Every structure is written in structure tokens, then in C-alpha cells.
């Protein structure tokens, strides 16, 4: 749903993109129509690498402005410059028409710009109240926003470190809003949020307009961006390549700008991925068979089968037991009831190494959980292979090198900045987490939201890779928080709600509304009536 963006009488005409910068729409409370935040000609280089070549951004008062770009386009560098974390080599930053030097997040705050980052800026060892004091946040206003964002039962004396990530992100946002900044910058705000909270966030963000405040919104979910935002600035290779007015069809325009010219090859991955879904119903002994699994307070009773050669999507709202389920499958925790069988043979894991021995490989959603950030790409990819040798002898470097190179090539991992994995972009890091298992061959791949917060091109590569693995005979279980991925990459989808399997769909009918209804625990009949 799209909120009315501008008063109808001065809807901007379809002017050439860069010209939109000079014809801002003056909202009622800003008669001068001046820009609230403007960055022009921003350049930033790190040694030989140019992160930003010519970036610009213009935010009007009372607008929700998307900042878009593939990974490595320079989005995060521009954000860091705006928030004072790093200094540009050239370019100007104007706040309400006055040039400002921003040296630190504290200074950016004083200029009326507050950022909400992907990793919440909350201190884990302090309680909620102390965190608010640290930023001089008015407690009443904060609680007000928290409630409006749909989180109740948040105690001021709760230790931040004990709270789940989704709550922390909501708190971080509420804290920023409570300070009533002119511009709030949201970096992938809806990632890692359950659907209901994400909806509240989008609604609240949209309402910021009414008080003349602006939002810079960074997201990889284009549908969400189009529904929420007024305009979008698109970055590619360190350069602002366009400013798009939102409206029907804007997604296509944005994707075009983000991908740049000659993307024909990428475009038809959708088609190619979809072809394989008309395979026969899986038969024979399943690779993985779950019978009435239960664990902890969340996972109650889950049964399904995963066959060789298929990608099975797993859909669930936040906290429906999927964490526990993946914990069991990866050998990190014990089920309290139920059985797990591999190739028809019942198994019980005592350690993740047992699961790996049985060919079950877990790719965590949190990249940091899986990688050794200070070690090289090569070592990271070769680690499971070397660990599997189960001896501490010398490593056969020649064989390792061959494997690693194959994996890097297949995944098109950008190793320009080579060396340490922590220097890679998020998307490339995610590819490394998968590559390491491809290198040694894999029977069963368990992916937990592998495409969270990464760009479209990398997402497509990952879908493609998962399909390829399945076609080669692997079994893939893909938990995803993005419902559209089921039709892009999966053969079937299992939906879990309240710790139980509520439905299973073949990919052809598993469109977003169907999955959404099931994920909210509505039965299929209801769904069909609803359609």
C-alpha cells in the first residue's frame, strides 16, 4: 500500500532524473523548500580502491528517501560519511543548506541525523534504562515509540544482552525516534524482524512524513521500498546513477540502474530456476526424515522429509521453532522428543562434527558465526575439509588450492581485496560460507536465511548455486525470511507455525500471499477463500 506522497497540486512532472534534485517539492511546513540534507560530489578512496567516485544524495524535508545499490556500490561508505564515521576525500555535506563537517556520530546527532544500524548500537552489558541515559533519550517518549512499534513487556531493567535481536532493533529505532531527529537513517531496518514487527516499522516510518521529518531508508527488499518511499537514489560503482520517483514499475527501473547495462544474462535466472520445479514428486528413501521432533519451549512437533535432488523451503515467522530445528539438525542441540533419520537410518548427534560426518552441513544466517574473520578466504574455504581429516598432520596444500580455486570460481567470489575474510563485503562473505562446503562436496545443505541483507545479484547467484547443488544430487533445506525465494529457488515449501508444521506447498502455488497466510497459522482453505 502506498501512502499519498505529495500534495496533488504540485506533483513533480516526469523530469530527467538529475533534474529532480533541483526541483524539490516543498511540503507545507517548509515554505523555502530547501533540502534538509544534501551531499554532493562525495569521493572516498582507500589506497588504490575507489569506494565512492561521485556520490550525491538530496533529501527533502518530510520524505522517505531510499538509498539503493548492489553490494560494493558504495552505500555503506556514503552512510559512514554522512554519520561521521569516516571523512570524505572530497565533496560537500550540507545540512539545511549550511555546509557541515561531520566528525563523529555524536556530531551527526547534533546536526539532527541519527542512524539505526544493522547491528543495534546498544550496550549489551547495560540495562535498557542505562542505555537510554547514555544517549540522553527521554524515557517516556522511548516507551511510547516502543509500544507504537508493537513491542510490549519491555522492562527498563532488562539487560540488553539478554534480549533477542528483533527487540533490540525495535529498541534502537524507538530510541532514535524518541530523540526526534530531522533525518533518521535506517539500514536494512526490516531485516531480522518478524513480519508483524516489520509491518509496524514500515507504518511508523511512513508516519514520520506527517511531522516533516525525513527518513533515509536502505533496504534490499524492493517491494517494500516502493511501497514506502517517495524517491530513491541509486548508487552503482561508487557513483549516483539516478534518482527515481517511486510509483508503479519503479522496481524495474531501480533494478536496471543497480545492475547497469548488459544484464540480460542475469535477468533470465528466474526462468532457469523455475524450470526444475516440474520434477516428479520425490520418491524413494528420503535423505533426511524428521519424525515428531520437539525441543525447548518453541519446537513442538515437526515432521517432514527432505529428498536428494530437491531444494525444500522452510517458512516461519520469527521464533516459531526454526532456530531449535536447525540446532538439532546441525548437531548443536538435542531434541527432547522425536527422531531424526538419514537415508532411513536413525541417528543421534552429540556434536556438530557428528552431523558433518553424516553429510549434514549447516550454513548459519549469522556469517560471523561461521567464518574466521581474520583468516584468509582460502583458509576459510578449506577449513571444513581440513577439519574433516580429523588428524593434526600436515595439510596437503596442492589439493587444498585446487579445491579452493574451483569453489571461488564457481561462486564468483570477489577476492580483489583478498586476504582477510572480514574485508569482504557481506554478500561475498556469505558466499564464502557456502563455498567452503561446496569445495569438499556436500550431501545435505542446511541454509538458514543465507540471503539476508545482501544484494540482488548475489542472491541470484546463491539461488542458482542451490539449484545446481540439488541437480547434482544434494538435498538442500532453505529457511528463508523472504517469501518470494520459495518460487525463485525451491521445489517445495514447508510452513511452520507455533512449533508445528502447518502446511506443505509445491513451489508452483507457493506465492507470497499463500505462504504469508500459512505462516500466520491460517489454514489453506481460508487462504483459498481469501483469494
Amino acid at each position: 500500500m502506498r501512502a499519498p506522497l505529495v500534495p496533488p497540486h504540485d506533483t513533480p512532472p516526469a523530469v530527467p532524473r538529475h533534474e529532480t534534485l533541483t526541483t524539490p517539492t516543498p511540503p507545507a511546513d517548509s515554505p523555502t523548500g530547501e533540502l534538509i540534507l544534501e551531499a554532493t560530489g562525495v569521493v572516498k578512496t582507500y589506497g588504490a580502491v575507489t569506494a565512492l567516485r561521485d556520490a550525491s544524495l538530496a533529501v527533502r524535508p518530510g520524505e522517505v528517501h531510499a538509498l539503493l545499490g548492489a553490494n560494493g556500490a558504495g552505500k555503506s561508505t556514503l552512510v559512514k560519511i554522512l554519520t561521521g564515521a569516516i571523512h570524505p576525500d572530497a565533496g560537500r555535506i550540507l545540512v539545511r543548506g549550511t555546509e557541515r563537517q561531520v566528525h563523529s556520530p555524536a556530531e551527526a546527532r547534533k546536526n539532527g541525523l541519527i542512524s539505526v544500524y544493522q547491528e543495534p548500537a546498544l550496550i549489551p552489558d547495560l540495562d535498557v534504562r542505562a542505555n537510554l541515559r547514555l544517549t540522553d533519550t527521554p524515557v517516556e517518549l522511548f516507551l511510547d515509540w516502543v509500544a507504537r512499534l508493537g513491542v510490549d513487556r519491555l522492562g527498563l531493567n532488562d539487560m540488553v544482552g539478554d534480549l533477542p535481536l528483533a527487540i533490540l532493533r525495535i529498541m534502537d529505532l524507538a530510541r532514535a525516534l524518541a530523540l526526534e531527529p530531522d533525518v533518521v537513517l535506517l539500514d536494512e531496518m526490516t531485516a531480522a524482524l518478524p513480519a508483524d514487527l516489520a509491518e509496524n516499522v514500515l507504518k511508523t516510518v511512513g508516519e514520520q512524513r506527517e511531522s516533516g521529518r525525513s527518513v533515509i531508508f536502505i533496504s534490499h527488499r524492493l517491494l517494500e521500498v516502493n511501497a514506502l518511499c517517495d524517491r530513491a537514489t541509486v548508487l552503482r560503482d561508487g557513483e549516483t546513477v539516478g534518482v527515481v520517483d517511486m510509483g508503479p514499475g519503479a522496481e524495474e527501473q531501480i533494478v536496471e540502474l543497480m545492475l547497469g547495462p548488459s544484464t540480460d544474462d542475469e535477468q533470465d535466472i528466474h526462468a532457469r530456476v523455475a524450470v526444475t520445479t516440474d520434477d516428479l514428486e520425490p520418491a524413494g528413501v528420503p535423505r533426511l526424515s524428521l519424525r515428531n521432533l520437539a525441543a525447548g519451549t518453541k519446537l513442538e512437533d515437526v515432521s517432514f522429509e527432505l529428498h536428494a535432488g530437491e531444494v525444500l523451503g522452510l517458512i516461519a515467522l520469527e521464533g516459531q521453532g526454526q532456530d531449535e530445528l536447525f540446532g538439532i539438525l546441525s548437531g548443536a542441540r538435542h531434541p527432547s522428543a522425536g527422531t531424526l533419520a538419514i537415508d532411513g537410518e536413525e541417528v543421534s548427534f552429540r556434536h556438530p562434527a557428528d552431523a558433518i560426518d553424516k553429510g549434514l552441513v549447516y550454513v548459519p544466517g549469522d556469517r560471523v558465526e561461521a567464518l574466521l574473520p581474520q583468516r584468509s578466504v582460502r583458509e576459510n574455504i578449506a577449513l571444513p575439509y581440513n577439519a574433516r581429516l580429523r588428524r593434526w598432520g600436515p595439510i596437503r596444500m596442492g589439493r587444498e588450492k585446487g579445491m579452493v580455486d574451483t569453489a571461488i570460481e564457481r561462486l564468483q567470489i570477489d577476492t580483489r581485496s583478498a586476504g582477510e575474510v572480514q574485508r569482504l563485503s557481506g554478500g561475498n562473505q556469505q558466499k564464502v560460507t557456502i563455498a567452503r562446503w561446496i569445495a569438499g562436496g556436500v550431501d545435505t545443505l542446511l541454509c538458514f536465511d543465507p540471503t539476508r541483507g545482501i544484494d540482488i545479484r548475489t542472491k541470484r547467484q546463491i539461488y542458482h548455486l542451490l539449484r545446481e547443488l540439488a541437480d547434482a544430487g544434494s538435498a538442500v533445506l532453505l529457511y528463508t525470511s523472504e517469501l518470494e525465494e520459495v518460487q525463485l529457488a525451491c521445489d517445495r515449501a514447508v510452513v511452520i507455525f507455533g512449533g508445528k508444521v502447518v502446511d506443505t506447498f509445491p513451489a508452483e502455488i507457493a506465492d507470497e500471499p499463500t505462504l504469508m497466510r500459512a505462516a500466520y497459522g491460517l489454514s489453506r482453505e481460508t487462504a483459498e477463500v481469501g483469494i
Partner: protein
Amino acid sequence: MTAVTSALGSADGGSSNAAAKRFIRRNGWVLTLWALLGAMFVFTKIIQPDYGMAAATILVLAALPYAFATAGQSMAIIAGGIDLSMAAMMTLLSVSAAALMEGQGEEFGIVAVALVLLLGLGVGAVNGLSVVITRVPDIVVTLAFFFIWEGAALMILDSPGGAASTWLKDLIIGSVGADFIPTEISKFLPKALILLVVALGVVWIPLRRSKLGLSMYAIGSDKLAAHRSGVAVSRTKVASYAFAGLFAAMGGLVLTMNTGIGTPVQGPYLMASVAAAVLGGVALTGGRGGLVGPIVAVFILRLARQDLTLMSVDPNVAQVVEGLIMVAVVLVGATVALRGRRS
């Protein structure tokens, strides 16, 4: 997490029952340490039935420099650093005090104390600034200053010497003598204990409640999040080392008060301060703990030493036993904490 935090936290935290539960949960480790200390006093009384206030007063006196060293170390560790120059700073500040007071009148003692406390802040700030400016890890920078401050101390006094004002020396000897306090009570109040509580309280309680104090926990807990929350990370770091220096100055003054002179030789306060801080619940990774736990831990470790002497254990064996006690206590604590989290 000190008593102070909880007092703050539970001010309007719903029912008193919930507040009490939270107090116990957050201060479980410190309460355990108090219980352990109490049990050790009972044990001491059993093995040495005539153990009384006189021996306890000696214990407090012996613990005093350790307590200040531990307080300073805790400041550095809470803010995410560590100060390996702690004992060297104490030596430097102790000889500075003794050299300042030599041949001066009694009144000058006050000036000397003030100067030494300021010098302590300054010396600590130099540590902090060096860490912040060079961006070399804290452990390396403060190790370098371990040698620098030791050398500086020898430059001020190349052999034990100097003097201390008499009133200053009296400050830690015996019990509180005031007309309005009956002797039955005052004999349980060794001056040294009062000095410790007052000196730590005057600095720590306001600091803990201030934004600077919060910021110190913040940078120790998560530097990036703190920076993004608008905390001046570098300034806070320097301040934490300055406070470590201030406590080192108190420790140095206590050394001079105790002996009446300054000795340019380091005492065993560095390792002891780290040990007591950790035992007292200060996480070496920063951001956790307070001052009450570490100070109680100092007394536990000192009393253990006293008990081993009372049992006439070979001093070398005693050292091994002390180490084992520490490992055991920390292990038990970790197990309890782990179980608490699971339930």
C-alpha cells in the same frame, strides 16, 4: 554489578519482590563472595580460637594497598583495557609522596597528598592517552609504562627514603577514636577500613551514577555500539586510565603511610590486582563488574594468605594453594552463572 546499580535499577522496578529477585540475580556473584568471606572468618576462628579484632585490623592494613591497586585495575578493565603499569605507578607515586614530605612541616602533608593524587590522575591519563593515540593494544602500551614509571621512581629516590607526615601515618593505625562512639563499637572500626571505604566511595559512587561511568561500561562492553551511541570513546578511555592512576595514587600514599618512607621497589600488586578484579566479577573482556566484588575478593585472598600462615604452611606451598583457590572459586562461579543462564 554493584549494589549501587541495583539500588538505581530497582528504584521504580515494580513490586519489591521482583526487585529483590533482580538484586539477587544481578549481584549473585558479589553475594557469594561475601558469604565466602564470612565462611572464611568462621574457619579462621575455628583454627585459631583467639583470632580477634587485632588480627583483623592487621588484615585490613595488609589488604589496603592491594585494595587500591585492584580498584584501579578494575577501572581499566571495565572500560575494556588493562593496566600493567599499576604496581609501577604505585611505586612512583609512593616515592613522590615520601620525597615531597621529607623535611617539610606537618601541614604540608595535605598539599603533598593533593599533589600526589593529581599526579596519579596525570600519570594515568598519560597511560590512557598513549593507548588512544598510538592505537597500540593496551597491554603493550601499559607494559611499556611499567618500565617507564619504574625508572621514574628510581630517578626520584634511588634507595628507600623520604618521610611522611605523622598525622598521615596515624590515619591508618588503630581504630576510630571519637567520643560519641562507644569503644564497644569503635574497636570494630579499624581506621584503615574506614579510609578504604571513604576513599573508594567518594570516587566510585558518584562516578558509577554519572554519565562518564556509564560511558566507561559502554566502551568496555561494545566499543562500536558506544561510538554509534555518541559516546566519546577515546576521551572515556583516557578518563578510565586517569581514574586507575588516581587509585594508584591512593595505593602509593597508603604504602608511604604504612612504612613512613618511600621504597622504589615494586610490590606484588600487579598480578594480585588482576587476580582480585577477575575473582571479584570484573570480566577481562570489559563492561562487566563493579568495585565491591573485587574489594571483597582482595580480602578473601589476603585472609587465605593469613590462614595459611596460621596453619604454618610452607610459604611456597601457600602460594600454590592461593592460586588453586582462585581457580576453584572462579570455576565454581562460572558454573553457577552458566546454570543460572540455562534455567
